[in-house]
């Protein structure tokens, strides 16, 4: 009898959870017509539930642009519900800020709207290359929930700067040289002077490197010069103080770069360096231990050849 009760309880909880996911994604209007959903800070390796990135949408007079779609199909579906709770205008563009799975795996939720998928000119190729391993990882992380999450590459590629018109509202999309990844795209909304930096800027969560740490530091210098009233990071809270956040990120990356270079010079092994590098930054960031170690693992072998 006891067992049956347990089974029922579990089924019930699962049903309620399933229902909750299909409801509109919680979003906040951070500037006129700009809606952001803030993801939670979870690691990819430990207890990942597919909703860690900041995603959202911008509403013009004639159309809507989606900016990133979340870590699996249900997050995309819930984002679409959130859009429909705000407006009935057509969803004309789905913009992916870069290739990472927490930003792109909800793309398929918008297929029926027949939008133009937009990304950095290197995004389509990088997506295709990583498709197999990304899908395999998602399956391992989410199990059955991963079903229906597919890789949908962009058809409109941004080489340098491209402007999209939502009707009385222009979005300036800029493709960057290799920084966080080799396919980072930023979006500026000229109407509200909002800069959507996505993972070019991490707030709270430890910045993760999948591109080029030196390239990223250069891009940060460029981003510091940009004007913006409001800045939207890929992780963490929306901010009015762009350069304070960029300076925090620059401090971490520069410390990491300096420490790893010093370790290599002293002949310290990569494993030891994973424990020692950038430890002065440990208390300033969330998920520091796992992400910082991964960063060392990626940059140490590259910096050995400097």
């Amino acid at each position, binding site marked *: 009898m006891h067992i049956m009760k*347990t089974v029922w309880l579990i089924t019930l909880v699962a049903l309620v959870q399933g229902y909750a996911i299909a409801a509109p994604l919680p979003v906040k209007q951070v500037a006129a017509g700009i809606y952001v959903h803030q993801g939670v800070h979870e690691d990819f390796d430990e207890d990942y539930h597919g909703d860690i990135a900041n995603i959202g949408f911008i509403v013009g007079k004639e159309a809507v642009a989606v900016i990133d779609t979340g870590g699996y199909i249900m997050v995309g579906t819930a984002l679409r519900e959130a859009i429909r709770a705000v407006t009935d205008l057509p969803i004309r563009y789905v913009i992916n800020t870069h290739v990472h799975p927490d930003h792109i795996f909800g793309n398929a939720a918008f297929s029926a709207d027949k939008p133009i998928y937009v990304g950095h000119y290197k995004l389509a190729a*990088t997506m295709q290359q990583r498709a197999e391993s990304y899908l*395999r990882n998602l399956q391992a992380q989410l199990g059955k929930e991963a079903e229906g999450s597919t890789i949908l590459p962009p058809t409109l590629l941004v080489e340098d700067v491209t402007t999209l018109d939502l009707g009385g509202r222009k979005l300036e999309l800029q493709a960057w040289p290799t920084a966080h990844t080799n396919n980072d795209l930023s979006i500026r909304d000229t109407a509200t002077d909002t800069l959507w930096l996505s993972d070019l800027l991490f707030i709270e969560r430890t910045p993760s490197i999948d591109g080029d740490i030196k390239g990223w530091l250069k891009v940060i210098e460029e981003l510091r010069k940009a004007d913006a009233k409001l800045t939207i990071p890929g992780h963490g809270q929306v901010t009015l103080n762009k350069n304070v956040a960029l300076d925090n990120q620059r401090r971490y990356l520069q410390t990491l770069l300096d420490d790893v270079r010093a370790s290599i010079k002293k002949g310290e092994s990569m*494993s030891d360096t994973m424990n020692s590098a950038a430890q002065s930054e440990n208390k300033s960031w969330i998920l520091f231990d796992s992400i910082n170690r991964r960063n060392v693992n990626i940059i140490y072998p590259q910096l050995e050849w400097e």
Partner: protein
Amino acid sequence: MKSHRRIQFAVLTLITMMWMPMHAWAEAEDKWDVLKEAFFAGKTVENAPELIRLEAPRRAESGAQVPLSFSIEQALTADHYFKNVYVLVGVNPVPLVGIFHFTPASGKAAISTRIRLERDSYIHVVAEDNHGKLYMNAVPVRAAGGCGGTVEGDEQAIRAEAGKMKLSVNAPVRPGEINQGKLLIKHPMYTGLQRDLVSQGFRPAFFANKAIVKLHGETVLAADLAIGMSEDPNIQFSFIADTPGEMEVEVQDNEGGVFKKSIQVNG
């Protein structure tokens, strides 16, 4: 009563398993039976966790660059030394990562390097002494995606760089004692399973397959390498230096490339 309880336990286990996230029960595969049959069929391999010391992360941060150290805790002498040490990863498309050959001049049969893991796996290290006796130890590592994935960069530039080396020894060199050397080889180590970013086709396998380190013309390390070694192989090794002399390295790749480098070692 007993069988009733067993069923109860089975049901509870099943529920617990369903309730746990997928990755919690995706454990590293051992595959030792397969490896044993493929590489040491008909031979006795002794389990030797005390003799073979292994160091690897429980969870690798990157499947493409997994740090691995092995050290065989026995002095090498003219009468007894380890001629072959096999590094094997059962789940990799090519399980044999490399075979490291030692001599009495190696001082110690110990290597630190970086290898690729396609997914969660045990790393098996098998040491064969000069009498043909085999010893084994293994360590489980969680990792993903080390053998496939993206290859970027200009093919011609990468090929032009291939074979460059950095060779160094820990200073000061202590005469008659065991010293440490470090060899870095610039080589893409294409697995043949990676797609080209532009053409989307597979880049053919292209990898360093041999490295030989000599001191005074005597071999201190010889290694047969395969695609399970990480890009830009990094090999730290031991040697005994009695008198000052030249340390020479020769590296070969699967396309017939031969690369050489030498440094002066004070002994």
